[in-house]
């Protein structure tokens, strides 16, 4: 057992302890009961814990030890690009001139922040071969929503009332969800068994009712879509806009560009390709890039440059509007900008080269012991199937849990949905060969155990702070907050 700690902060509370330091009031009247009408005021102080500063530090330090993170463990979560998050990015993001700038500071007093945003937008546009980029979306899913809304506004501006968006059955769940919020009927398109788009079937589905086709390149099986240019041309011939889910951009930096492939829109996940930390589930940033014909519809405001002066342009009457209150997840933009400047064009190309090399190395080392979803070479990730192990009673979940005991976080499991017992492995370029070897050794060990000693897999994990958890109980009897017993 890694650590037997089992406290919540509320259980450490001792009345009278304080963890904060604030000055006494220095103004004449400090009694809120004299300043505000009673009906607005709370009768009792909120039931928050009373703990010392050191209680806080030790508690959260101990909680952190109950997590695996990229800093401590290989984290091959497919589609999430769990690469190293450079420490320099954090130093830079904490400069007061970035971290302590108010969003409504006068533009003349925020020129450095606006310049950074302007340059980052151009860098991303160059990387993706797009004409313009909005940095506002807070995460990939919001970038998707923005992109689909721009497509919708574009069709409307041409007097077209298209009602459907095509999404492959191999897509991330956010694709259909974002599309539905944008007001479209989602039509799922069956992929070929190898995960590629069935181009003939697509051609039959495309009609004047289809607003967009939304696909991930490389696809969610880690393969480049070989007929992609033909596909985007086919779509354009029918007036259909083509959206690229940029989740897998880490595979193609400097190799190929969505804009050159014919895409009209694509989003970027700065927390994947551009090293901003995943933070246990965000914050991310999901900038969205578009071709010139969609530029009038970008979210407001747009950062503009006139001579040496940067400004926020709100006068964009055809804009889809706003996605979050202010200008984007600026703190993440600072980190991504720092990373791009650190790597330069050659460095970014080398990122994709090594991400591809690492994924192919893993695929090669595991192809004898696991079924490969699609024969390689793959791009930046590979998808295996545990169908062989399943016949022995060992599922993808079991393998994931056993990996935790062997000191690795797990690959994505059961995604993409079109692969039985899927294990989606994305090593990223930042991992060294010896880590990849250790992981492959563990995977091979598990394959052997499935044949000879499945109990050790079914019992896993036993080294983590808790063992397998009862998901059914959690959903049937929701317990979503702590309550004082008795």
């Amino acid at each position, binding site marked *: 057992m890694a650590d037997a700690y089992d406290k919540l902060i509320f259980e450490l509370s001792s009345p009278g302890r304080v*963890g*904060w330091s604030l000055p006494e*009031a220095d*103004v004449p009247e400090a009694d809120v009961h004299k*300043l*505000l009408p009673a*009906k*607005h005021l709370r*009768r009792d*102080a*909120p039931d928050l814990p009373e*703990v010392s500063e050191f209680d*806080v530090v030790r*508690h*959260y330090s101990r909680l952190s030890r109950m*997590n695996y993170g990229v*800093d*401590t463990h290989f984290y091959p*979560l497919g589609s999430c690009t*769990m690469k190293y998050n450079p420490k320099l990015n954090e130093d830079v993001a904490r400069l007061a*001139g970035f971290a*302590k700038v*108010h*969003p*409504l*500071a006068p533009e003349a007093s925020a020129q450095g922040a606006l310049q*950074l945003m302007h340059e980052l937008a151009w860098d991303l546009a*160059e990387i993706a071969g797009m004409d313009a980029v909005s940095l506002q979306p807070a*995460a990939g899913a919001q970038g998707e*929503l923005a992109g689909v809304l721009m497509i919708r506004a574009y069709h409307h501006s041409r007097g077209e009332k298209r009602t459907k968006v095509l999404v492959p059955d191999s897509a991330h*769940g*956010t694709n259909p*969800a974002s599309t539905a*919020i944008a007001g479209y009927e989602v039509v799922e398109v069956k992929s070929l068994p190898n995960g590629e788009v069935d181009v003939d079937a697509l051609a039959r589905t495309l009609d004047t009712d289809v607003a967009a086709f939304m696909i991930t390149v490389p696809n969610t099986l880690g393969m480049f879509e070989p007929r*992609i240019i033909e596909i985007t041309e086919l779509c354009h011939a029918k007036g259909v806009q083509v959206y690229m889910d940029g989740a897998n951009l880490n595979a193609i930096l*400097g190799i190929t560009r969505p804009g050159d492939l014919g895409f009209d829109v694509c989003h970027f996940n700065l927390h994947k390709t551009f*090293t901003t930390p995943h*933070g*246990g*589930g*965000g914050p991310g*940033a999901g900038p969205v890039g578009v071709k010139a014909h969609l530029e009038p519809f970008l*979210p407001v405001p747009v950062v503009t440059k006139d001579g040496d002066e940067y400004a926020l342009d709100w006068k964009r009457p055809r804009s889809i*509007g*706003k996605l979050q*209150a202010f200008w*984007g997840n600026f703190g993440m933009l600072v980190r991504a900008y720092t990373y791009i*400047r*650190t*790597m330069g064009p050659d*460095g970014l190309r080398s990122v994709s080269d090594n991400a591809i*090399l690492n994924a192919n190395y893993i695929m090669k080392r595991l192809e004898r012991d696991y079924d490969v979803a699609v024969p390689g070479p793959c791009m930046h990730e590979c998808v295996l199937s545990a169908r062989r192990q399943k016949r022995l009673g060992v599922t993808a979940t079991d393998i994931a849990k056993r990996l935790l005991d062997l000191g690795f*976080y797990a690959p994505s499991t059961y995604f993409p949905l079109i692969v039985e017992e899927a294990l989606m492995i994305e090593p990223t*370029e930042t991992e060294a*060969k010896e880590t990849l070897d250790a992981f492959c050794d563990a995977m091979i060990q598990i394959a052997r155990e499935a044949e000879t000693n499945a109990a050790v897999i079914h019992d896993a994990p036993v080294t983590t702070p808790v063992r*397998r*958890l009862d998901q059914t109980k*959690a959903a049937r009897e*929701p317990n979503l907050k*702590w309550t004082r017993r008795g």
Partner: protein
Amino acid sequence: MASRYIANTPDEQKRMLGAIGSGSIEDLLVKIPPKARLARPLGLTPALAETDLIRHMTALAARNAHADSHVSFLGAGSYDHYIPSPINHLILRGEFFTAYTPYQPEASQGTLRSIYEYQTMIAELTGMDVANASIYDGASSLAEAALMAHSVTDRREIVLSRAVHPLYKRVTATYCEGPGVRLRDVPAPEGVTDLAAARQVVNATTAALVVQTPNFYGCLEDVAAAAEIAHAAGALLVVVADPVNLGVLEGPGKLGADIVVGEGQGLGVPLDFGGPNLGVFAAKNELVRRMPGRLVGATVDHDGKRGFVLTLQTREQHIRRAKATSNICTNVALCALMATIYLATLGRRGLVKVGELSTAKAHYAASRLTKVPGVSLRFTAPFFKEFALKLPKAPERVLPRLARQGFLAGVPLKTFDRALADCLLVAVTEKRTKAEIDAFAAALEKAVA
């Protein structure tokens, strides 16, 4: 030149390629059609060494006025509150910082426990039954609440007070465009929602009535009366509230709110030029299966030991796809962790103190600034830590002069409401001192003279 973020050496690359059976990395790219390939290097600035990059970034940062270089009275949804030192140290622990969504709960108990604590604290502050693990920011939380109210009531109209943050309204309008949900306004001519007008507008087509308290102008709304109006029409009441104020102000849930959303940036999250922020989202129990976003629940493990998992996931996009309650996936977990550590540190008495000091200093500032000839409060309704100040001179002429003297004097309201072109929105947190406020008043007096 080799990159410090990539481990493979040329020799290791060669050995790996040998194992794969490929001659070069180029051989691995065979599936990409030649005409799809980029034939030139990316047109980006060449790589900078760490020392040069720090110099460049420091120079960029130096061109921005910030909360340490100036005395700031800027608010309007983003506030310069006290951030206890441990927060930054704790969130930087790699096990928190570099983990992702806790898909493998056994190896993510730290994140899951902290989210469970967060949900508990937010439910307590807002006076609601359940809170989710976070939405992007206050504005997108309101947008999600509008869509949720639409789906719960099967009605197509959201009625918003004009005293709700105008940028939140714009975000809500963006999200409501696709589903065809209409937005209607209720006026707030005196700085608070005109409830008589609300009663006229809210009807059987209304999915939700939305008020904010303190509202965009800093004034306190009568939430109980708004709840009565919404509920009489069978609509939900959505309240936008800032949780950092809820040590002093009553939780909207206790006053009849069905959904409480808000911006949690004040809970230990840096200003960061407006993001990332922290979208707070809390609701009544009966709405829990319609909520957007992640939820963490307590359960037991194989040995009966307490543990935590993501739960009620059939609401979410990775399971329900086009029928999900929301498209949100990545949220702002790390900002929620900052808020959790903030609320643990401030605790029962500290959060009350933050609210008391902010109120006291804001009221002192209002009385002091209105002693400047020609300067007055635009509205008479009770306010909390922010107020609209009417100036005798156009704010755009006054602000640059005050900025040069070291004051970020407030947010001009002209861009939000032409009728308030002579007004400045002034926010005062517990960080401001009497001396700063007095100096600001003196500078303002000269600037408007």
